[in-house]
């Protein structure tokens, strides 16, 4: 039933968006369940912001459909907008407006806003409340924009790279606030290219790359599967055919991927015997390991396995 409290908060089906002949979003399917923190994770340029801005009604889907809280963000924009909160990646405030003045202004556009003073206090804006927006630090601007997104007591917030430019304390405050919102019944959709942010914060993660969804799951689902990873970094470039000869040495039970000319990623059911085998292979092939790490698979590894590229660039 569309729009009922148990139906998904966001349903994106077959979304295609192109700009100047370049495909930004390529047949994307994505669902966000209510009362979750859902992270859309991917490298810069993966299509995260375009997808979010389509959900927010800024862009008309060129192909496919987008439904937010059971509404069409284009045709039912006026009905939808009071129910969502939006934190844009860039800008969003007059350069000369004072921080708390801006928050009060956004609050006045809503029927039942939170008390701006209290919210500002919680987000550490108390000290800079009278500072013009252009003189705020990057982290203060981010916290103000987050406050602007939530002050109207929305059912659903879209936050685009919420912790970009924040110091570690600011990131922790932001994470705690987003978690509290989720616990209070708000649905949170965030984009990030920080895998640790997605891993620590999100209930559900959608990994997108080059405009398409490449993996979906909880952080645990995405990183488990009996797999461990070994990262091998060597002091000088590997000899020709290194991945194949290493794979042969490991008995083809494990996946070997080249990350760079001096590093390899080995994934699969790896254990200490595997480490010994890799170590022996290095000696036989005259390469000197700089580091050899056995670890639990993290999202960085998942992304690397799925795309053959590093995530945080």
């Amino acid at each position, binding site marked *: 039933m569309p729009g009922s409290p148990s139906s998904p908060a966001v349903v994106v089906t077959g979304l295609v968006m192109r700009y100047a002949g370049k495909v930004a979003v390529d047949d994307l399917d994505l669902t966000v369940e209510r009362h979750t923190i859902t992270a859309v994770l991917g490298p810069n340029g993966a299509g995260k912001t375009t997808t979010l801005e389509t959900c927010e009604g800024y862009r008309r889907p060129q192909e496919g459909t987008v439904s937010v809280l059971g509404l069409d963000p284009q045709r039912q924009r006026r009905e939808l907008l009071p129910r969502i909160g939006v934190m844009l990646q860039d800008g969003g405030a007059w350069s000369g407006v004072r921080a708390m003045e801006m928050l009060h202004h956004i609050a006045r556009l809503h029927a039942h806003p939170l008390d701006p003073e209290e919210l500002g206090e919680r987000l550490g804006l108390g000290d800079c409340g009278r500072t013009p927006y252009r003189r705020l630090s990057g982290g203060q601007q981010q916290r103000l924009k987050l406050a602007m997104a939530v002050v109207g007591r929305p059912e659903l917030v879209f936050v685009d790279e919420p912790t970009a430019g924040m110091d570690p304390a600011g990131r922790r405050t932001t994470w705690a606030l987003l978690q509290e919102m989720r616990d209070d*019944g708000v649905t949170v959709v965030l984009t990030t290219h920080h895998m640790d942010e997605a891993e620590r914060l999100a209930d559900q993660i959608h990994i997108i790359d080059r405009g398409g969804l490449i993996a979906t799951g909880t952080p645990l689902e995405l990183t488990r599967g009996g797999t461990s990873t070994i990262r091998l970094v060597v002091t000088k470039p590997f000899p020709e055919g290194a991945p194949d000869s290493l794979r042969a040495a490991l008995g083809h039970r494990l996946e070997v991927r080249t990350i760079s000319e001096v590093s390899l990623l080995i994934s699969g059911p790896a254990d200490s015997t595997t480490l010994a085998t890799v170590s022996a292979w290095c000696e036989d092939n005259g390469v000197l390991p700089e580091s050899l790490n056995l670890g639990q698979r993290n999202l960085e590894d998942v992304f690397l396995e799925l795309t053959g590229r590093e995530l945080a660039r």
Partner: protein
Amino acid sequence: MSTDAGYFSPRPGAAPLARQVLAQASMEARLMLRNGEQLLLAVVIPVIVLVAAVEGAGALDLDFSRPPVDVFAPGVLALAVMSTAFTSLAIATGFERRYGVIKRLGSSPLPRSGLLLGKVGALLLVEALQVAVISLVALALGWDPALGYLPALLAVVAGTAAFAALGLFVAGVLRAEATLAAANLVYLLLMAGGAVVLPASAYGAFGSVAVLLPSGALGEALREACWTGGVDWPAILVLVVWAAVGAGLTARTFRWE
């Protein structure tokens, strides 16, 4: 799941439109008056022009059929309206686009019609302040206007509509810096040659062209209101046409982002 007690428990909703428009108008008016350059344009320059023109006319013994302050005060009011409705609005809107303010407000409960109404409200608030200050200075200089309040109000509203439509057009097609330059340049050109402060009759043959400019039409309409208390209908018609042309151009070209 019981979520009633939470601090962030959703309770969404838009404020009544009138309240949103009022909030937007007072916010924009405050920002306009806080900005030093805009305040200079809005109040300081018109007052200087008024005092200088009245004193200069006395010194040069210019021959008008009425006292210099009666000649210049309505024109300076027209200049003030032009500075706010055209130059200030264009510059402010240009930078709102640049800083993503319009985009951000686009996802707030405030509809675009509300944003436009808010801008109009801000202009009228600032103009009321300008009219009060300039009128007080003019009265101190001995101004003796005919009390054509409604004709003067009609002229100000029509002039505001014309200049605001043109200002939004400029802000919508040019980048913020180019808008800043163009809006100031047009202001200076119209102030010097647009029959705004000086009556169109003072421009000789060019006067008949000048009354077709929005500046000249607004100037003439305000002079008529302050001199005879009547309505200069041809001038009002010129302003309405400019407003329609500007609105049409803006509707075709304006980009909110």
